[in-house]
C-alpha cells in the first residue's frame, strides 16, 4: 500500500462519517426544430436551406424504402424486415454528421444512415432478401453490417476506435443501437472501456420507446438512457431524435470531441417506433393505437417539411417530384434485386476461411453430388 500523502490524509479526515458528495450529473437536451416546425434558438451553421433540403430528401427516401420493403415482404419477395418508420431523423442525422472515412456500426433499423453513406438500395434489398452479398458494400467498405444479436456491436465499436488510434488515424466510430440494447452487459462494458481509454467513439441510443413488446418503462428504472453514461465517466446527451438538425448537431459535436482526444459520448435520441417491430410482429397485440396516433404528431418528416414550406423553400410540386423520384429509384433497385438470382452454394464455403481447408473440398463435393442427385 502507498502511504497516504498529507493532502490525502486531509481528504480522509474530511470524509469520515456521513458526508454529502456532490457528484456532477448534467445532461444537455438538444432540440432545434419542434414538432410544429418552429425553430428554437439559432440553427447550427450547417443548416442552410440547401442542406436542410438534402436531409429532408434523405428522410423521405428512407421512408419510401421502408414502404417498398414491406410491400415486397408482404408479397413473399423479401425476408422479415425491420422498418424505421417514424425514426428517420436519427439515422439520417447521424450519418450526415459523420465523415466518409468514419465507421458506422448500425443495429438493424439504420438504413437511413446506410443509404446516406453510400450503401445502395439494391444492396439493402439483397441483404433483407436473405442474400449476404448485400453486406458486401461497394460504398463504405469499412462500415459494419447490420448487428443482429442486440448490443453485440457496442464492444466492436470500441475495437474499431482502438484500431484507429493504434494506426494514428484521425477517424471515429459511431455505434447505433436501441433503448433495449442499453440493458445489455455489452453496452455497459463498452461505454466503460471507451470512457476509461478516452476512445474516439460515439454511441447513439435510439430510444424508440419499445423493444419488441417491452416498453421503455419496463426496460430500465433510469429516468433517461443518456444518464447511463455518467457512471462510466462519459458525457451523456439527450436529443430530440425526431429533429434531424438536432441529431446531426449533437453527433457533430460528439465527433469533434472524439477527434480532439476528449473521449466518447453517449447520445440518447428520443423518437418513437410508429411501425411494428418487424414484419413478423403485430404491435397491436401489445400496444395501444391511441399511443401510436399521438406520436404521429411529432414524426420527423412533416416538421421539416413545414419549416421548409414556411421558408418558401418547398412546395407541393417539390414534394410530388421528390416522391416520384424516390419511387423510381426503388423501382430500379427492386428490378436489379429480383434479377440478381440466388447466390451460388459455393459461397457458404468460399467465404468461411481465407483459404478453404482441404476437408471442406470433400464436404462441398458431397453437397454438389447430392444436389445433382436431387
Amino acid at each position, binding site marked *: 500500500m502507498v502511504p497516504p500523502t498529507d493532502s490525502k490524509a486531509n481528504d480522509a479526515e474530511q470524509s469520515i462519517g456521513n458526508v454529502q458528495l456532490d457528484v456532477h450529473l448534467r445532461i444537455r437536451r438538444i432540440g432545434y426544430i419542434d414538432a410544429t416546425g418552429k425553430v428554437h434558438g439559432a440553427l447550427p451553421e450547417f443548416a442552410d436551406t440547401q442542406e436542410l433540403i438534402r436531409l429532408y430528401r434523405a428522410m423521405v427516401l428512407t421512408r419510401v424504402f421502408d414502404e417498398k420493403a414491406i410491400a415486397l415482404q408482404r408479397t413473399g419477395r423479401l425476408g422479415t424486415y425491420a422498418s424505421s418508420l417514424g425514426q428517420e431523423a436519427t439515422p439520417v442525422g447521424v450519418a450526415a454528421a459523420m465523415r466518409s472515412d468514419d465507421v458506422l456500426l448500425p443495429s438493424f433499423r439504420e438504413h437511413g444512415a446506410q443509404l446516406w453513406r453510400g450503401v445502395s438500395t439494391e444492396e439493402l434489398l439483397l441483404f433483407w432478401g436473405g442474400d449476404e452479398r448485400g453486406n458486401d458494400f461497394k460504398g463504405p467498405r469499412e462500415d459494419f453490417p447490420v448487428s443482429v444479436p442486440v448490443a453485440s456491436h457496442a464492444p466492436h465499436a470500441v475495437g474499431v476506435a482502438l484500431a484507429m488510434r493504434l494506426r494514428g488515424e484521425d477517424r471515429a466510430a459511431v455505434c447505433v443501437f436501441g433503448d433495449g440494447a442499453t440493458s445489455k452487459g455489452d453496452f455497459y462494458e463498452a461505454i466503460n472501456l471507451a470512457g476509461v481509454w478516452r476512445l474516439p467513439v460515439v454511441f447513439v441510443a435510439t430510444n424508440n420507446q419499445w423493444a419488441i413488446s417491452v416498453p421503455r418503462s419496463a426496460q430500465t428504472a433510469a429516468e433517461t438512457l443518456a444518464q447511463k453514461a455518467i457512471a462510466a465517466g462519459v458525457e451523456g446527451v439527450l436529443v430530440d431524435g425526431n429533429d434531424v438538425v438536432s441529431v446531426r448537431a449533437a453527433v457533430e459535436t460528439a465527433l469533434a470531441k472524439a477527434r480532439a482526444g476528449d473521449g466518447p459520448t453517449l447520445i440518447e435520441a428520443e423518437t418513437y417506433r410508429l411501425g411494428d417491430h418487424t414484419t413478423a410482429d403485430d404491435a397491436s397485440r401489445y400496444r395501444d393505437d391511441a399511443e401510436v396516433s399521438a406520436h404521429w404528431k411529432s414524426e420527423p418528416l412533416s416538421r421539416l417539411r413545414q419549416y421548409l414550406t414556411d421558408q418558401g423553400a418547398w412546395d407541393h410540386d417539390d414534394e410530388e417530384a421528390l416522391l416520384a423520384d424516390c419511387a423510381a429509384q426503388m423501382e430500379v433497385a427492386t428490378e436489379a434485386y429480383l434479377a440478381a438470382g440466388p447466390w451460388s452454394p459455393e459461397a*457458404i464455403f468460399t467465404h468461411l476461411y481465407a483459404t478453404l481447408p482441404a476437408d471442406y473440398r470433400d464436404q462441398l463435393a458431397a453437397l454438389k453430388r447430392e444436389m445433382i442427385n436431387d
Partner: protein
Amino acid sequence: MAVMTYADAAKTTLAEEMRRDPLVWCLGEDLGRGGVFGQYKGLPEEFGPQRISDAPISEAAILGAAVGAAMTGTRPVVEMRFADFALCAVDELVNQAAKARYMFGGQTKVPLVVREPMGMWRSSAAQHSQSLESWYTHIPGLVVVCPATPHDNRGLLKTAIRSDDPVVYMEHKNLWALEGEVPDGDPIPFGVARIARAGTDVTIVSWSATVHAATEAAESLASEGIEAEVIDLRTLWPWDKRAVFASVEKTGRLIVAHESVQVGGFGAEVAATVADALFGKLKAPVKRLGSPRVPIAYAPPLEDMLRVTPAKIAEMARTLVQQ
C-alpha cells in the same frame, strides 16, 4: 386422447407445474405478452408478473439471476428465446450452474430449466438457426434434452422442472406447430429412448426435428424392402446406450442423423461408443449424417442445401444395407 401442438404441450405442463408448486416461475424477454413464439400465452394472466416475469434484454443477468434463485430454493424456468442468444449467457451455465453442486461440496443444488429453442426455421440466417446441443453434452453437470414430439415435450418438461440439476431444454422451432397425440401428462424419465419405428435392417439414431426426417426415410425404405429402426434419443445426456446397443445388435448397421454440424456433433459420441462396444457385431461401418461445417445460410435455397433430409438419410441407409 388429447391432440396437442408441441408448443401447447409444453405450456400445459408448465401451467400444471406452476399450479402444483408455487416455487416454479419463469423469466425471460417478451414473456409478458406470452413469449415470442406464443409458448407462454395465457400464463401471464394466470400467474402474474412475478412468476411470469418480463425481463429487459439482459441474457447474462437473466441466467445469472436464475442460477442464484435456483440455489435459493426456487425452480426457475429461463426462456432464452433462441439458443443462439443463450450464448450471451452461457458462462452462467457452464461455469456456474454446472459446477455449483460439486464445488459447494454437495451442499447446494441448481434446479434450473433453460429453454433454448434451436434449429433451422425458414430463413432465419446464421445467428437464429443453430443447433448447439452437442456443446452442452460436453459439460459435466448439465442435462441435455431435445424433445421431438408433443407427447415428449409434455413429459420431458415435467421431469426437467422437477429435476434437481440444471437442464438445457432445447425445443426445435420448426416443431412448435406440430400436432400429436398426448396420451398423458406423466413425467418421462431422462435417459430412456423411444423407438419411433421398429425395424431389422438398419438402426437410425436421431433426436429433435431430425427424428421426423428419419421416420419419413424409414417409410420410403420400407417400400423398397428395407426395414429401418428409428430411435429417438429424447435426451442426449444422459443417453440411452442400452436401447441403441440392443437395436444395433439386431440390425448390425448404424446411422446417426442430426441437424447440427456433423464435425464434433453428438453423433460422433454415439458412433464411437457403438463402434467400441459392438465392434464384432457390425455388418457395415458406422455412419454419421449432419450439416456441413458451415454457417446456416439466410437464402432459402442455400439453407435447404444444408438440411439433413429424408432423401439423404434413405440414400445412406440403402448404401449401408447393400454393403
